[in-house]
C-alpha cells in the first residue's frame, strides 16, 4: 500500500496532525506546519514531473499511479487512488496554498487547534483529489467541509456564528443531494449480473447508467457539487462565509475548497453521465451564466473588501462551471486553468486582505485610502492580484479566461450553425462582458483603497509586510505569473484527459437538449 506515492498525500497530513497535537509551543507548531506543507509541495512537484515523464515515455492509461485496496469489501468499497493531469494540477494548487496559508496564519491565536483543523481540512482536500472511488471521494469531501465550522466560528470575525452555521449547513445540504446521487450511481454502476462498483473509471467504462436514471442523478450530483462551486442561486454562503473567515481559511476555502465543487461536477457529474450532461446542460448553463455577470455586478457596489472578493469568486467560479458545461475540449481545459488561476489569485487576494485588515482593523474601503504610501509592498501585491483578476496578459487570469471564451465561442457557433439553438453563443457573449465589469470593480477598489490621499492619518504609523507575509504573497505571485507566462505547459498537462474516448461526452456533436427545450433554431 505504501509503495504508492499518492497515499503520502494523506499520510503526511495525518502525520502533521499527530505532530501538531504533540507540539508544546507555537514555534514547534509553525515548524511542523511549514515542514509538512513544504514536504507536500515538494511531493506534488515531484509527482508533476514524474507524471510528465511517464506520459512522455508513452503511458496511455487515463489515470496513472492507480492503486486499489479493499476496504468495505461486501459493498465493493475500495480505497482506490489515481491521478491524471487535472488532479495533479489541483494537488499542486492545494499544497501551494496550504504552504502560503500556514505562513499567512503565522501569528494566529490558539495555533494548536487552528492548525489541527486546518490540516484536517487539507487532508480532506488531498484525499478528495487523489481518490477515484466515489465513496472515499465523498468521505474526504465531507472531511474537508466540517472543520470550516470551527475555523470560522472560533477564529472568525464579524457575524461569525451566523456565517459559520450558514456555510456549514448550506454545504451539507449540497452534500445531502450529492450522497443520494452517488448511491444512486452505485446501484446503476454496472449492467445486470455484474458486480456493482464505486470506481469512477469502471463506472465510466461500464456506462451502464440508463438515460432516465442519468436525468435523475445528474442534477443531484451537479447541484451537490455546484453548491460548493458557488453556483447561483446557492452561492449565498460564500460572501458571509468568506467575510467572517480568518485569512488562511478564506485562502484555503476560496482557493481550494471551491475547486472541489468544480472538480466534482467535472469528474463525477459530467464524466459519468454524459447523456444527461448533454440534455440538461442548458439549465445549468443559464444558472452559471447568470452567476458570472451577477457576481461581478454585485461586487461593484460592495464596500467590504472580503465581500468584493467573495462576489468576484462567485463570478469566476461561475465561469468554471460555465466552461465545463460547454462540453468542449478547449472550454473544459480553460475551466481547469481557471480553477488553478482563480485558486492562486483569490488566495493571494484573501491573504492580502487579511494582512491589511490585521493592520487597519477595518475592511471597509470607505475607511481607507492611500495605502500605497503606507504599505507599498502589500499595495503593489494587491495591484498585481487585481491585474490577474481582471485578466492582464502575463498573469494567470488572462489565459484561463481566453481559453474559456475561445472554446465556448467555438461551441456556441457550432451549436448555432447546427441549428441547436443560440443559447451557448448568447451566454458566451454575456460572459465575455464580465471582463469589463471585473475591471470596473477591481479598479474601483484599487483606486479607493491604495491610491489617492491617505484617508485616515492613524494609518500612517502602520508597517509594511513582515518576512513571512512577503514570503507567502511572493510565492503566490510567482505561481500566478508562471501560469500566465507558460500556459501551454499546463494545457499540455491536462489535455490528455480530454480525448473523446476517455471523455465520452465530447462525442456529442448535436446538443439537442438545448434546441428541443428552448426551440431556438
Amino acid at each position, binding site marked *: 500500500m505504501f509503495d504508492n506515492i499518492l497515499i503520502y498525500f494523506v499520510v503526511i497530513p495525518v502525520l502533521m496532525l499527530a505532530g501538531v497535537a504533540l507540539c508544546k509551543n507555537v514555534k514547534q507548531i509553525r515548524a511542523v506546519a511549514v515542514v509538512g506543507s513544504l514536504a507536500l509541495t515538494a511531493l506534488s512537484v515531484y509527482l508533476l514531473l514524474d507524471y510528465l515523464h511517464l506520459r512522455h515515455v508513452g503511458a496511455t492509461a487515463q489515470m496513472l499511479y492507480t492503486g486499489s485496496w479493499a476496504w468495505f*469489501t461486501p459493498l465493493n468499497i475500495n480505497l482506490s487512488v489515481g491521478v491524471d493531469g487535472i488532479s495533479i494540477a489541483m494537488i499542486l494548487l492545494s499544497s501551494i496554498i496550504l504552504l502560503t496559508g500556514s505562513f499567512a496564519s503565522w501569528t494566529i491565536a490558539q495555533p494548536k487547534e487552528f492548525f489541527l483543523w486546518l490540516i484536517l481540512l487539507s487532508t480532506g482536500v488531498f484525499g478528495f483529489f487523489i481518490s477515484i472511488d466515489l465513496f472515499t471521494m465523498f*468521505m474526504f469531501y465531507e472531511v474537508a467541509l466540517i472543520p470550516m465550522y470551527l475555523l470560522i466560528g472560533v477564529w472568525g470575525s464579524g457575524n*461569525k456564528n451566523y456565517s459559520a452555521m450558514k456555510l456549514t449547513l448550506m454545504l451539507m445540504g449540497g452534500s445531502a443531494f450529492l*450522497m443520494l446521487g452517488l448511491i444512486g450511481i452505485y446501484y446503476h454502476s454496472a449492467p445486470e449480473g455484474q458486480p456493482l462498483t464505486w470506481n469512477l473509471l469502471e463506472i465510466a467504462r461500464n456506462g451502464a447508467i440508463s438515460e432516465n436514471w442519468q436525468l435523475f442523478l445528474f442534477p443531484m450530483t451537479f447541484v451537490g457539487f455546484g453548491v460548493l462551486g458557488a453556483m447561483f442561486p446557492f452561492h449565498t454562503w460564500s460572501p458571509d462565509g468568506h467575510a467572517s473567515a480568518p485569512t488562511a481559511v478564506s485562502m484555503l476555502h476560496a482557493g481550494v475548497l471551491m475547486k472541489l465543487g468544480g472538480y466534482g461536477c467535472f469528474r463525477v457529474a459530467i464524466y459519468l453521465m454524459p447523456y444527461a450532461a448533454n440534455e440538461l446542460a442548458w439549465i445549468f448553463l443559464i444558472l452559471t451564466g447568470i452567476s458570472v455577470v451577477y457576481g461581478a455586478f454585485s461586487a461593484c457596489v460592495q464596500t467590504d473588501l472580503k465581500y468584493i472578493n467573495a462576489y468576484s469568486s462567485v463570478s469566476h467560479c461561475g465561469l468554471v462551471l460555465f466552461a465545463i458545461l460547454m462540453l468542449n475540449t478547449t472550454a473544459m481545459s480553460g475551466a481547469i486553468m481557471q480553477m488553478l488561476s482563480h485558486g492562486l489569485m483569490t488566495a493571494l487576494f484573501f491573504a492580502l486582505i487579511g494582512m491589511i485588515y490585521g493592520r487597519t482593523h477595518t475592511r471597509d474601503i470607505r475607511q481607507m485610502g492611500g495605502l500605497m504610501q503606507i504599505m507599498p509592498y502589500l499595495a503593489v501585491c494587491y495591484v498585481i492580484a487585481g491585474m490577474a483578476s481582471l485578466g492582464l496578459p502575463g498573469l494567470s487570469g488572462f489565459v484561463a479566461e481566453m481559453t474559456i471564451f475561445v472554446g465556448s465561442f467555438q461551441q456556441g457557433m457550432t451549436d448555432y450553425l447546427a441549428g441547436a439553438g443560440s443559447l451557448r453563443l448568447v451566454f458566451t457573449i454575456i460572459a465575455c462582458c464580465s471582463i469589463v465589469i471585473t475591471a470596473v470593480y477591481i479598479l474601483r477598489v484599487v483606486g479607493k483603497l491604495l491610491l489617492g490621499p491617505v484617508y485616515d492619518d492613524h494609518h500612517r504609523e502602520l508597517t509594511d509586510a513582515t518576512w513571512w507575509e512577503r514570503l507567502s504573497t511572493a510565492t503566490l505571485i510567482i505561481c500566478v505569473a508562471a501560469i500566465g507566462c507558460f500556459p501551454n505547459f499546463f494545457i499540455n498537462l491536462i489535455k490528455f484527459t480530454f480525448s473523446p474516448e476517455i471523455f465520452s461526452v465530447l462525442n456529442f456533436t448535436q446538443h439537442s437538449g438545448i434546441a428541443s427545450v428552448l426551440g431556438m433554431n
Partner: protein
Amino acid sequence: MDYSQFLAMKQEIGLLIVFLLVFLYDTFMPKKALNATAGFTCVVFAIYTLVSFCCLSACETVSAFSGMYTTGPVMSTIKNILNVGVLIVLIQATQWANSEFQIMRRGEFYELLLLTLFGMYLMISARHFLLFVIGLESASLPLAAMVAFDKQHYESHEAAIKYILTAVFSSAVFMMGLSFVYGLTGSLYFTDIYAGIGAEHSVMLIMALAFVISGIGFKLSLVPFHLWTADVYQGAPTSVTSYLSVISKGAAAFAFLVILVQAFGLAYSQVWEWMLYALIILTITVGNLFAIRQRNMKRFLAFSSVSQAGYIMLGVIAFNTTGLASMMYYILVYIFSNLAAFGVIGAIENATGKVNMDDYNGLYKTNPKLSFAMMLAMFSLAGIPPFAGFFSKFFIFTGAIQQGSTAIYVLVLIALINTIISLYYYLLVVKAMFINTENECVIPTFRSSCSERLGLWITVAGILLLGIVSFFYNSILSMTSSGGIMIDL
C-alpha cells in the same frame, strides 16, 4: 420434556449466572465490601461479555422449545453488541452508583439492569409471541423502577409514572393487536402466522398489525408513540437514560425487524412498508424539530435519539441483508456515540450537577478533553467523517436504497435533508463548548473519576475506530448474508 433444550440458551444462562453472582454478592457480602459492588459487577459482566464474544464463532443456528426460541450467529451478534453497550453503561454508572444517595440501593440497580437485559435477550430470540411479550415486559417493567431510582428528585418519580402508565397502555394495545392476530391465524408462532395470513389484506389484520407495530414503536419511541421519551430521559438518572436510549432501543429495533420479517413477511410487506414510511418520516422530522429548541442536554439527546430511531428504521424498511447488517452496525455505532455523549453529560452532572446547554458555554477552555469527547460524539451522531457515525449513516442509506423503489429514494432524500437539521443542533452543542464564551459561571476544571474516564476512552476509541476499521461492518455483513434470519426472504 427435554430439559437439555435450555442449553441452547447459552447467553441467557450466562447472563443469569452473572445476575446471580451480583445478587449473592450484594446480599451476603459484609457491609464494607459493598463499596466494591460496582467494580465487581463490571468485572463479572466484562468476563461474561468476553466469553460470549469468543463463543460467537462457535455459535450456530439452533431453536428450542419447538421453535419458541431461536438463536444463531446474527442473534448472538446483536446480543454481544448489546453486551458491549451494557458494559460501557455499567462502567459509566459506577461513579453515580457510588454517590452517597445510591449507596444502599446500588445492588438493586445492577440487578434490575441485568434483568431488563435478560428480557431483551428474550425479545431478540423469541419466535413465539408469548415469549416475546414476556421478554418485552421484563425488559420494560424493571426499567420503570430504574427510572424512579433518584428518590430525592421529583423529576425521577414523574418520569417513572409517565413511563409505567404509557408502557402498560402500549402493552395493552400491543396485546390487543396480538389477540386479533391470534384470532385470525390461530397461532402465536411467527412462522405459523407467516403461513396463516393470506395474501389478501383484511382490515382487521391491518388494524391488528398497526396495534402490534405501535407496541414495539413505543419501545423504539417512534413518533407518535414517542411522547414519553423526552420526559423520561430528562427525569431519569443519567445512567438509566443512557441505558434506555441505546440498549433497549437496539434490542427493540432488532426484534421489530424479526417480527416484521418472520411473522408479517412478504405477504404483508406492502402493508407495513406503508406504515413504516409514514412512521419514519414522522419520527425523523418531528424528532429533529423538537430537538432544535431543547436546552436541557438530556432532553435534547432524547429527541435526537428519537430521530436516530428513524434512521435505524431505514435499515428495517430496506428489508434485505445489507439493510439488516447496516442496522446492526448502526446500532453498534449509535451505542458508542450516544454513550460517549451521555458519559460526558454524566461526568459533568456528577461533578457540578449542571445539565443545561448554556452551562456548557466555554467548556473547552476549562475541560478540553471532555469537550473534545463530546464533540466527537456529536460529529459521530451527525454523521461527519471520519467518525463512525458517517459510515453507519452512509451504509444504512445504501442498504435502504438497495430496495430500489422510487418511494425509497424520496424517503432517503427526506432523511438526508433532515440530517441537515440534525447537524444544526449537534453543532449547537459544539458551538456552546468551543465558540461561546459569554458565561458568568463557567464549569470549573475538574478531574472526572477514573471509571468515567475509562468509559469515555472506550467510547471515543469506538467512535474513531469502528468506521475506519472495516472489520466490524464486513464481519457483520458477511454473517447476515450467510444465513441468519433473512433466509426466508
